[in-house]
């Protein structure tokens, strides 16, 4: 049986992906799970493994082409050509009872219109068509007009081929072209949400196209701003205790765990404790409902040269300090080396971002939809502060929380931050 290879859904909000490179040529043999092609999306760059073993029969999307999720990009013939030929009688039988049931429609083109196709190829095409998402009507029209559905790009839900799609395809197919794949229509041009009003600038310019990843980041940021009522609150937190704990324990931590002791697990542990106290920060909004999530899946924003990625620590609420530190180091490392799995950037329920590593005092982060809050950490540095009416030198940092005012009021956000501050300032949890 031929197997359709589709553009995978690399994250719940991803709509399309770009093929960077085919690792096999048509006619090559592939093993199941052997890397077949490379793609880039806004969330990850990834090698896509072959869903089945067999011969790569057809490549339907070329390199650098951007296609919608679930679009068929290749067909793998499971048995090889010999097997396909062998199964022809089985295929030829299938339509027979239909002929009795359905009176021939007047629109059936005379046989001369269709150039004779190699029996094996035709059989493969028919069988491939049956595996595509379409409708009873579309399958009937395909049968009546001898159309290989795998050649049609579906515009319905999940790439489903609709009546409109097949009628459009038939319209564009002249007798001479019958059976030859039509030029694939470009993806529907979405108005780019990232582009603002055009302002005339007459000096010399240079134009650089956004990468797909950049384009989708742009879309997500604008979409988030349009979705949530963003408000940011900033707290100043005395990190001296955390800094001292880190300095005191760093060597032993690295020796015993093989992990660098960074500030991130401190922040993550404190955030998790605060979320447990205020579960609304672990929710999302669906129409007029607030969906509380049981698991705390903590996203940690990681800056890459090419953009931004947010790997997710699943069930962060159940992790102790060492487990948290291990998860942070593992995910951040693999994010930088582009070795994240798709499911490791999905299902986040709350995000932490750390602009402080670049020296930022504080910022106003944008919420990572469909979450409702994001915690930012500014630079930790020594500052003169007043303690007991004297000026003391302490390690200070600004922590900021952007929250969705649709469901979270300022008082609740500030209680959350006060709780967080109260965990961090007198740091008590043993790190080992």
């Amino acid at each position, binding site marked *: 049986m031929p197997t359709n290879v589709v553009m995978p859904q690399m994250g719940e909000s991803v709509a399309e992906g770009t093929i960077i490179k085919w690792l096999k040529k048509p006619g090559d043999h592939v093993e199941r799970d052997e890397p077949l092609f490379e793609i880039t999306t806004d969330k990850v760059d990834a090698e896509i493994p072959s869903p089945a073993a067999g011969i790569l029969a057809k490549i339907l999307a070329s390199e650098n082409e951007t296609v919608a999720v679930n679009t068929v990009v290749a067909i793998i013939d499971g048995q090889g050509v010999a097997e396909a030929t062998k199964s022809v009688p089985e295929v030829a039988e299938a339509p027979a009872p239909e002929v009795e049931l359905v009176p021939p429609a007047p629109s059936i083109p005379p046989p001369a219109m269709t150039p004779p196709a190699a029996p094996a190829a035709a059989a493969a095409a028919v069988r491939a068509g049956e595996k595509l998402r379409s409708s009873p009507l579309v399958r009937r029209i395909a049968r009546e007009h001898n159309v290989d559905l795998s050649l049609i790009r579906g515009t*319905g839900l999940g790439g489903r081929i609709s009546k409109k799609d097949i009628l459009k395809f038939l319209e564009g197919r002249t007798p001479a072209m019958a059976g030859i794949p039509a030029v694939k229509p470009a993806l529907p041009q979405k108005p780019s949400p990232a582009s603002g009003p055009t302002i005339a600038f007459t000096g010399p310019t240079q134009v650089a196209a956004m990468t797909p990843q950049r384009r989708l980041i742009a879309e997500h940021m604008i979409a988030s701003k349009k979705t949530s009522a963003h408000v940011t609150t900033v707290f100043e937190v005395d990190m001296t205790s955390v800094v001292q704990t880190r300095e005191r324990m760093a060597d032993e931590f690295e020796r015993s765990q093989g992990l660098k002791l960074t500030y991130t697990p401190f922040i993550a542990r404190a955030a998790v404790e605060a979320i447990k106290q205020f579960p609304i920060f672990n929710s999302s909004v669906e129409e007029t409902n607030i969906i509380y999530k049981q698991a705390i899946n903590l996203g940690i924003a990681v800056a890459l040269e090419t953009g931004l990625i947010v790997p997710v620590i699943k069930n962060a609420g159940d992790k102790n300090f060492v487990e948290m530190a291990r998860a942070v180091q593992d995910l951040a490392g693999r994010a930088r080396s582009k070795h994240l799995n798709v499911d490791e950037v999905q299902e986040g329920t709350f995000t932490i971002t750390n602009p402080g590593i670049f020296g930022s005092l504080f910022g106003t982060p944008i919420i990572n939809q469909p979450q409702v809050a994001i915690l930012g950490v500014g630079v930790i540095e020594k500052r003169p502060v007043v303690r007991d009416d004297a000026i003391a030198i302490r390690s200070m940092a600004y922590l900021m929380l952007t929250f969705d005012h649709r469901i979270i009021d300022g008082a609740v956000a500030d209680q959350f931050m006060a709780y967080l501050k109260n965990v961090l300032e007198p740091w008590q949890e043993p790190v080992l």
Partner: protein
Amino acid sequence: MPQLTYLEAIRQGIWEEMERDASVFLLGEDIGPYGGAFKVTAGMVEKFGEERVIDTPISEAAIVGAAVGAALMGMRPVAEMQFMDFISCGFDQIVNMAAKIHYRWGAAVPIVIRGPSGAGVHGGPFHSQSNEMWFAHVPGLKVVAPSTAYDAKGLIKASIRDNNPVIFYEHKYLYRRVKEAVPDGDYVVPLGKAAVRREGSDIAVITYGAMVWTALEAAEVLERDGISLEVVDLRTLLPYDEQCVLTSVRKCSKVILLHEDTRIGGLAGELAAVIAEKAFEDLDGPIVRVTAPDTPVPFSPPLEEYFLPNVQKIADAARQLAAY
């Protein structure tokens, strides 16, 4: 042509049949000097006298039983249910007597049982039901539900002339809200024939009663989005116009079945089955139902509004289906 309300059109239809055929008479609660709870029979007793416009005791079983007996003796009674909700008290007489007599004895039972049904007027659970499917499941009956004033007159006249027992559902929300030009004088709208109220190409909406108007409103809204709805008004629910339904489904390839009645066992389920059986290979998407939920009609006005299908719900369903 005079402008008549839906209610006045029904009155005129009955009136003309009373004038035309001396065997036609009316019976029901407070239909005489009071003119009926909604005034459908206002002026009738003055015109036709107490022998042909009979005020009955409050007993639906007695009303239907008397009508069945009179029909067997050659009369053509038109019985009013003050609200169609109360028809349940006459259930046995309808389903075990009126519906079966022809099959048992070969005798005709030309009765019409008519009255107001439907919600949207804050009538609460006992004065708002759409219980047409109780009778659409009974072989031997005909079930009629007009949506326009023209049809209301033509269908009540056809129902009175039909030799079978007819349950005639008048939608109380439409009584005085629908007003249109209705020809004076005799015409009938045949039972069992649907009407295409609006031609469209993308999605066929099959409905009846007050929901016809809601569907037409939704069609206007969706036209602006480039989605073209065809609206089919069934007019008769038993026997329904299968040919018209299938023609519209084949034309549009997608279908929404819409009714004010609750979901389980509603007519939409039956239509979905016949479409799946006979037009499966014409479908380009799932068969979609838009109906009331499976609860009694709520008394609270906001809850009643939530309960009823509306333009928004139809538009949402249509947009999803169009994108499928």
